[in-house]
């Protein structure tokens, strides 16, 4: 009798154990997508706690076993590996599942540089990172269109992203100005501005504007680069006068397109001009040019 009771108890225990074990069974769909709702099916009976551990969040809620559990889109924002844990009466049961990124919705567009001299080959680069609406990187190949234009004219290029990244390289235009650099994928479009600025001064020339007993005023022609763009104001132009008393130097700034410097008057002096490493013409003061 005692034995029977013992066996019965053992059977009952096993039965309960298997029932509890079944209670923790979870069915998770294979096609979970970030930012979309998800239904988890549970089996068994009684109350339990569901814990979802994701790449960027942890969700914990009470559930009733045997009923479906709805995970809201805002709870499932991050793509990657998730772990679902159910804690009921028996030990915790868990299962890992994958959430894939949603469709491309946002771009991070890195346009470099923000300022570039005109007429230089391959100096502009654009890199677009493709993300879904929840900022998950979308590794699936996605067509990304890049366009670079100054004053309405320019070029377009379509590139397929690889590992979530698409990139292009481009040359700067001959004309100075603000170039519009746009990257677009699907409905997402991002605009950047690349300032194309004048290059080094070209054909630097000066002349005597005014001469007095003490001073001579030298002035340059309008200063432009080799493609005809005016060199920006503020650029340093160095005037160097050499005579028997020594060397006099004035670092003048271009203002309104020209540079002007007041140098000591001399009976016999040579004057040279330079901007950066570019040299200009030479003048002789006292005995004519």
């Amino acid at each position, binding site marked *: 009798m005692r034995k029977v009771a013992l066996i019965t108890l053992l059977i009952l225990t096993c039965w309960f154990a298997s029932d509890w074990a079944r209670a923790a069974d979870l069915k998770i769909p294979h096609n979970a997508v970030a930012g979309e709702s998800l239904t988890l099916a549970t089996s068994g009976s009684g109350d339990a706690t569901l814990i979802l551990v994701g790449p960027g969040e942890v969700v914990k809620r009470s559930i009733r076993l045997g009923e479906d559990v709805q995970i809201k889109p805002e709870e499932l924002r991050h793509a990657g590996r998730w772990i679902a844990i159910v804690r009921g009466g028996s030990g915790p049961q868990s299962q890992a599942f994958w959430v894939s990124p949603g469709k491309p919705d946002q*771009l*991070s*567009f*890195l*346009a*470099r*540089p*923000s*300022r570039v001299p005109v007429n230089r080959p391959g100096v502009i680069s654009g890199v677009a*990172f493709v993300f879904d609406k929840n900022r998950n990187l979308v590794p699936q190949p996605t067509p990304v269109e890049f366009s670079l234009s100054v004053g309405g004219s320019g070029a377009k290029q379509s590139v397929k992203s690889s590992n979530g990244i698409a990139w292009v390289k481009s040359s700067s235009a001959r004309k100075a100005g603000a170039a519009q650099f746009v990257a677009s994928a699907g409905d997402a479009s*991002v605009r*950047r*501005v690349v300032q194309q*600025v*004048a290059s*080094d*001064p070209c054909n630097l020339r000066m002349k005597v504007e005014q001469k007095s007993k003490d001073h001579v005023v030298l002035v340059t022609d309008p200063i432009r680069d080799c493609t005809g763009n005016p*060199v*920006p*104001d*503020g*650029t*340093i*132009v160095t005037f160097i006068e050499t005579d028997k*008393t*020594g*060397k*006099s*130097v*004035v*670092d*003048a*700034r271009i*203002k*309104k397109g020209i540079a002007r*410097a*007041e*140098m*000591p008057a001399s009976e016999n002096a040579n004057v040279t001009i330079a*901007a*950066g*490493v570019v040299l200009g013409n030479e003048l002789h003061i006292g005995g004519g040019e």
Partner: protein
Amino acid sequence: MKFALPVIFGLLTVALLAVGAVHPSSTAPASSPEGAVQAMLANVQGHDWKDAYSYISPSSNVDLQDFVKDLNGRDGSLRTYSSLESFTTRPLHENDNQATVRTETKYSTAVGAFYDTRDLNVVKDNGQWKIVWAGEKTPTVPPQVIPVNYLRWDVIWRGAGDDWGSQNVENPHVRILSMNPVSQASGLSIMGEVENEDTVPAFVSVAATLVGKNGQDLGTESSFDRTSHVLLPKEISPYRIDFPGIKLTEVQSARMKPDSMLVPASADPVIGVMHQRIEKDAKGRSVLQGDLLNESGQIVNIPHVLATFYDNSGKVIWVSDGYVDHALLPQTPQGFAVSLSDDLAAKVHSYRVTVNQYSRDWQD
């Protein structure tokens, strides 16, 4: 006898106080020309201007106020940020009534030690040696209007938030034009020129790391104040980086690190460097000297001269610098001198002087 010990100790204490307090009078008449100069400078050191002035000959035609300004600086110059730290004197020649005394003074200034040499004339005046003080004459600039096309760059930065991908204004492109290591007894110096090749102003600093023969870093130093930090578009500045105690033979290579930053800047002031020439100074040393001319309408408080010396192949063979202890008044030439060694002077083929400056008002 009862009070013997207290009296002895009392006297001993007074004697010790007296020994500690023995000190010559700060206005005692000088017995020699050198003594007069020393007494005057000692008073200047203690900021006792009145006592210092008592050693000035009435024939100098300088009043106390101007005398103090000569020594203590004016117009926010470097001298106004200075105090006399030490001095040496040496009589150059002397007779019964007149003498010349050379003074070498060391000032502690806001930018470090500043050395000055001056020959002072000393005369006997009513039996006392007095200094003939050659007061500084401030030239009078005719009233005039200096038109300013105020040119400056302002920068609007991206916000503090981490909006990756959104564009920020890019730092200016600077380029090291040349780099030349020079070995000396005190160590190794790396010098050359750096150019802002961009179209916006750049805040530049140049640092270098020396790499030893077995690949380890020997040390990192920066050009600190031996360069101009704010470079306008296409402006070129020399730089010199000193590595004390390191020999050229220990070095395999150098890693240069030019840093540039876009900063708000002003195109003013324009400072011309006139009549530059290499000459010998009073002590017989080679110096590069000339005049600085502030072509703007505002005072430049502290000018800093940077001189680049080239050999006949155009290579930078030395970069020297010096602060000028007088402010640059508008349209008024102010002399400067930068020393260079005689053996270096022999190699110099050409040179170039640039001027860096600090102006109180413009800083704000």
